[in-house]
């Protein structure tokens, strides 16, 4: 790599020629304050909080977009620089609604942090406030453009990472906003509700729809039996919302906290992840043996399902008909569990804790009422659960470690890895390989399918069949895959797709911030949960076995078909 020598605050450094001043400074441990800059997105250079002095340059330069050059001399903390930064932030605050105290991002807001870091104690200007209406017409996300600082991150994550191009800057000058085409609501355009825009937004301008109030009400209603399921990726991330380091595994404390909040039963989505493997695995075997539509593609990520329904409706048949674990769980709670526990399903309130905002929209789909009721009543994100735990005054770090309730809380290591990209594939391979070959696997770690790359491929020998698989995460990569399938170029048998970067562990409902290191740490924690599980194959889950033996019959049977499978249809938003 070509290198150049530059001086930053008197320190001589050698940095790659392609670096920006901000990256160069970061590499030598000098942190330049920034606001619109996000390490994983193309810099916009919009806010000018990151200004520095460069000898010979005209005026101050925005370090996040300014390239280094040989012999450059940079000063990052002069009086002029500090004053300019303050001015920029003061001007932002002058137009900003001053309602931090009641804002969803209070204490986790980059605008607040920068104002605090820069020591702003007075806003010298009284600017006009924007008067944009709030977009809250969809089940997943709420947009409040009055809190937008025009950083452009949502535009880029949605176009560059997700390939959906929902947002753009519109209008100009003071009226500039960041909106979907024709200033429509997200429910009117081709938005997948993945929530990636909410996780990169530095302020409260895009947030998850908060459903905690409804859940509090159910919890305090003595006539309701409130059960909760927790998705695999929540246990390795929830701790971050409560002051713990990324990658902390907090399964047992989370269970204890949910009991303290008043949930009558604390169950695990991992149980239905195992069940998904049996249904989806059987479907794969059926398609392989009876000439069904291949490649078969996983269907657990509702952001991904929305994507296919919106953009590739001609390829819907490739999707497995298996419902997502959340929805299988919902269907079972108000049937199987209600029967077993002798509770009227009308009294059950079924709550799920998900790393995902699209799950909120999935729960209200009209197909998701196979129990005769809405199968899942409320979906809370990891962030919302974190807030409830705080609101209840629970000292999370001091909680004891508790176990899930039986039977819907019993799961395997295969269920938990659903939370990482490649996990559904690996869990399926563990089961499908043993069923197809009739032999126990020597090693159940399929390292080829792990990792974080957007598209990964592997060939797995099962008996005398070479199964070609692919694992995809992010919707921009999913688009490439579907183009290949459409053109007939792809010869895979089975493909796993997750809408979010890194899979659910990088989901749109996960703690903020989420960077690539954060995702790595959460992934490591998920695989740790798998290694330390006593059972690591879905078909060996005793509670799942019992469910089939005593109630459900066999995978793909009548009852399964009715409760655990679904169909898809084109969505016409564009």
């Amino acid at each position, binding site marked *: 790599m070509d290198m150049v020598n530059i001086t930053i605050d008197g320190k001589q450094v050698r940095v790659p020629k392609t670096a920006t001043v901000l990256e160069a400074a970061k590499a030598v441990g000098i942190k330049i304050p920034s606001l619109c800059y996000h390490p994983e997105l193309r810099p916009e250079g919009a806010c000018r909080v990151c200004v520095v002095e460069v000898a010979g340059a005209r005026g101050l330069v925005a370090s996040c977009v300014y390239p280094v050059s040989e012999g450059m001399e940079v000063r990052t903390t002069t009086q002029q620089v500090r004053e300019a930064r303050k001015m920029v932030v003061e001007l932002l605050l002058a137009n900003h609604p001053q309602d931090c105290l009641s804002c969803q991002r209070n204490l986790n807001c980059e605008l607040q942090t920068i104002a605090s870091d820069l020591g702003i104690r007075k806003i010298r200007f009284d600017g006009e406030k924007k008067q944009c209406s709030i977009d809250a017409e969809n089940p997943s996300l709420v947009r409040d453009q009055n809190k937008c600082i025009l950083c452009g991150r949502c535009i880029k994550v949605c176009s560059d990472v997700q390939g959906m191009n929902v947002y753009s800057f*519109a*209008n*100009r000058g003071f009226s500039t906003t960041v909106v979907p085409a024709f200033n429509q609501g997200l429910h009117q355009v081709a938005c997948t509700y993945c929530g990636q825009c909410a996780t990169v937004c530095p302020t409260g301008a895009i947030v998850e729809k908060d459903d905690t109030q409804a859940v509090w009400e159910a919890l305090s209603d003595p006539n309701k039996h409130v059960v909760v399921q927790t998705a695999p990726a929540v246990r390795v991330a929830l701790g971050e919302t409560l002051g713990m380091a990324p990658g902390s595994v907090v399964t047992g404390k989370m269970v204890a906290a949910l009991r303290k909040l008043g949930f009558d039963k604390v169950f695990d989505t991992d149980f239905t992840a195992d069940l998904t493997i049996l249904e989806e695995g059987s479907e794969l075997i059926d398609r392989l043996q009876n000439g069904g539509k291949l490649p078969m593609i996983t269907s657990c990520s509702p952001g991904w399902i929305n994507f296919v329904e919106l953009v590739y409706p001609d390829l819907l048949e490739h999707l497995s008909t298996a419902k997502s674990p959340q929805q299988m769980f919902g269907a079972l709670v108000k049937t199987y569990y209600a029967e077993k526990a002798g509770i009227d399903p009308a009294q059950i309130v079924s709550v799920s804790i998900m790393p995902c905002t699209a799950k909120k929209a999935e729960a209200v789909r009209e197909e998701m009422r196979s129990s005769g009721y809405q199968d899942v009543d409320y979906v809370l994100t990891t962030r919302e659960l974190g807030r409830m735990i705080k609101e209840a005054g629970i000292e999370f770090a001091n909680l004891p470690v508790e176990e899930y309730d039986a039977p819907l809380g019993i799961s395997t290591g295969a269920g938990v890895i659903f939370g990482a990209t490649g996990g559904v594939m690996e869990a399926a391979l563990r089961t499908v390989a043993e069923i197809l070959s009739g032999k126990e696997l020597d090693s159940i770690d399929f390292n080829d399918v792990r990792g974080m790359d957007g598209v990964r491929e592997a060939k797995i020998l099962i008996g005398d069949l070479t199964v070609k698989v692919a694992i995809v995460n992010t919707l921009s990569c999913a688009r490439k895959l579907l183009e290949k399938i459409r053109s007939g170029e792809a010869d895979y048998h089975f493909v796993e797709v997750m809408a979010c970067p890194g899979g659910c562990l990088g989901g749109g409902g996960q703690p903020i911030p989420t960077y690539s290191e954060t995702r790595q740490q959460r992934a490591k924690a998920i695989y740790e949960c798998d290694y330390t599980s006593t059972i690591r194959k879905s078909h060996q889950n005793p509670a799942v076995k019992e469910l089939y033996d005593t109630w459900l019959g066999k995978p793909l049977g009548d009852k399964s078909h009715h409760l655990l499978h679904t169909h898809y249809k084109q969505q016409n938003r564009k």
Partner: protein
Amino acid sequence: MCDCCGGNHEKKFVQLEAILKKYQGMKGALIPVLQEAQDAYGYLSKEVIEHIGEHLDIPVSQIYGVVTFYSQFHLNPRGRNIIRVCQGTACHVRGGKAILEAVQKQLNIKAGQTTPDLRFTLETVACIGACGLAPVMMVNDDTHGRLTQELIPEILTKYS
């Protein structure tokens, strides 16, 4: 061919098809295509923009961004007569705001809107360079100066 609006789309978009054909494969075609489409249809409807997006392979959100950035583009039908009420400093000092309010009241629309009968579109401008006549408004190419609220109804009757 796109599939965005079923059968009669051919007919509806003949002019647009011709414009798109002219710029086919050219870089930077968006702005000229938008200008010509607006000349052809009077304004840029959602359907027209979606059609352009599909053909040039540009996201509709981005085209919307461009269209709203430049004041020359219009997303809604324009009236036969365009009223521009000056809100520049000189007019402001001499009651430009009251004039705007009077026009709004008379037409029952807000600045930026068009009357349902498409007779008038009402806009504001920063300065039209006739400060000596403040407060001023223009209707099409006619300048009306030294306005008072009372003069508004009569002036407007001259335009049909």
